[in-house]
């Protein structure tokens, strides 16, 4: 793989992040696209969970006109024109760019030190041995190159028909800055309000974190960051964004896209059942969970967390196994919600059919065209 030739492992571990953030996600399981109003109003409702040092949105079903092309949304810090030139030289060499433009912004919104953010719709231009790798792997390795080797350039998102918009500010300010409620529609929105405490609030450090069409928004602290990060480096994922959540995005890409594991299994890798509870399980389950703990020990995510992970057709919410961070799910008709607080859901959808909270470590899986989210009900309160 390309990555191996380009990068040395970085031994210096940046400080990890402690957070008490606000999360919200909404998906229409019929696939109908809708505007950003619900996501924006819900995250405004839980404003006090963030402190204005980071807000961001992930939107799926965003670019139907270019849905066959990878949409690279790239941020150039300090509006660094030289970085943009370098990135574009690199893109021209490795991709066919079918269309590119600056992501429209509202200059009237006062945000801190905004970077230049550009979107490129591209198709891989493979040469020689590249033909042996999948398009997705090809894109991942090029994204890793840009993130690690071109100064002041960071890829916000790199999936097809989706995009991440994020920055420093309260989420509603970021939404206004990127004109989210005016310009875009999608069938799945996730949003994050950040409360960083010991790493800088900077544009690249806002959530969602993304690779290909995977996005992660996270509340909590991944105290296993060092272990997770080293394990991911062995699989050619390099953490560059100074925040623990990044490992989660790469871990789901590795486990779910490359290794093809379903979320029901992946959630048991991130939040495995306690050893003493394994003793009370059926033999088959016990064997599976014991095996997972052994094979994937370095991907156990330790510490308090709630995450909402999304990719096309699927969104899931998961907490750590002893639920040290909150989550509530809600449903009305085809709309399914996940949030840090029930009130955020109720304020955008007052007449919910259902509101429930799963057991710690049990995922709520929301899938296009299915009612799988209801599978988490029996163990919920």
């Amino acid at each position, binding site marked *: 793989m390309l990555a191996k030739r380009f990068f040395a492992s970085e031994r210096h571990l940046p400080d990890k992040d402690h957070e008490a953030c606000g999360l919200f996600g909404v998906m229409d399981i019929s696939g109908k696209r809708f505007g950003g109003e619900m996501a924006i109003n819900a995250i405004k409702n*839980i404003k006090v969970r963030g402190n204005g040092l980071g807000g961001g949105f992930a939107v799926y079903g965003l670019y139907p006109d270019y849905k066959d092309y990878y949409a690279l949304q790239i941020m150039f810090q300090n509006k660094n024109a030289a970085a943009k030139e370098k990135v574009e030289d690199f893109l021209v060499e490795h991709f066919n760019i079918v269309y590119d433009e600056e992501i429209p912004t509202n200059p009237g919104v006062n945000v801190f030190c905004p970077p230049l953010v550009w979107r490129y719709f591209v198709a891989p231009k493979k040469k020689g041995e590249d033909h042996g790798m999948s398009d997705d792997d090809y894109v991942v390795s090029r994204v890793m190159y840009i993130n690690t080797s071109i100064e002041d350039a960071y890829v916000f998102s790199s999936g097809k028909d989706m995009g991440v918009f994020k920055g420093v500010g309260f989420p509603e300010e970021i939404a206004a800055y990127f004109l989210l409620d005016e310009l875009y529609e999608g069938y799945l929105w996730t949003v994050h309000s950040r409360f960083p405490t010991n790493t800088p609030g900077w544009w690249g450090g806002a959530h969602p974190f993304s690779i290909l069409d995977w996005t992660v928004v996270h509340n909590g602290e991944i105290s296993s960051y060092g272990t997770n990060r080293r394990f991911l480096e062995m699989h050619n994922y390099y953490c560059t964004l100074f925040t623990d959540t990044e490992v989660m995005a790469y871990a789901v890409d590795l486990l779910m896209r490359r290794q093809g594991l379903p979320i029901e299994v992946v959630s048991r890798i991130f939040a495995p059942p306690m050893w003493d509870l394994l003793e009370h399980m059926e033999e088959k389950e016990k064997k599976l969970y014991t095996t997972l703990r052994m094979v994937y020990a370095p991907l156990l995510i330790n510490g308090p967390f709630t995450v909402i992970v999304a990719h096309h057709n699927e969104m899931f919410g998961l907490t750590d196994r002893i639920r040290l961070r909150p989550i*509530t799910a809600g449903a009305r008709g085809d709309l399914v919600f996940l949030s840090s607080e029930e009130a955020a859901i109720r304020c955008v959808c007052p007449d919910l059919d259902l509101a429930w909270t799963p*057991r*710690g470590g049990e995922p709520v899986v929301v899938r296009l065209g299915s009612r799988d989210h209801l599978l988490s009900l029996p163990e919920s309160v």
Partner: protein
Amino acid sequence: MSNLNVKFGLRDMFLDGVRPAATLVKYVSTNGTSAEIDALGLKHKELNDLLRAVALQGVTRITVKNVFGQRYIGTRLYLPDPEKKVEIKIFKNPGNDLGAFLNGHRIIVYGNAQDGVGNTMDDGEIIIHGRAGDIAAMSMRGGKIFIRDNVGYRAAIHMKEYAGKVPVLVIGGTAQDFFGEYMAGGIVILLGLNLKENERHKARYIGTGMHGGVIYLRGCVEEYQLGKEVGVRELNERDREIVERYVGEFSAHFGFSADEICKGKFQKLLPVSKRPYGKIYAY
């Protein structure tokens, strides 16, 4: 990175833009000793400022409509006349730490509550026609909380009692893990009314670290669901009286039949030690 650190421009997400209570009169309509507050668009502090202002005017019954996540409702209601208590009805979704430090007032919620109901509550009553989130009754030191449906993780964590001050928590449904964790005092009753016959309670690690107080648990639970620090006992005559009294109050609030509920099988969970970790940490 240091030039990007914007901590200097940090804004206060709680207090920025809070309006003085005097400018918020349009949210309140008062009628004698009753008042109604429309909480739509009110910040946490604004709503609590209004509650306090209204209570100081002599209002004793307050209805709050359109509540969507406002926190700490009912806190800071320490009035000049300590005998004067108010009743607050909330529609529909109060935010975290509902009734924190509550000072003898009564709060009734017609909807679900979130995390931290009755956090360090001192006295009074909280009645929830719905469910509650995690850490319900955390560090509660007096008064009563009645929750019709389920509760999340760590209900009654570090509840305490002293002399005549014994807090009571009654839950109609079931609970999630670490129920009664580090409990130091008080009475907790878990009824399991929404469980099927012979269906076990959902909680595991019940009473982990418990070193005071008592849990009365109606319905089934396997031994492995209990923490190492609790023992199971039969109810004696005095226990029965306690259960009947508080189940009676619970049933009156929510329209259940107390007799039916009391017919169910109860067990009593008690801490086996007053200092469960004494041998680990003391040297």
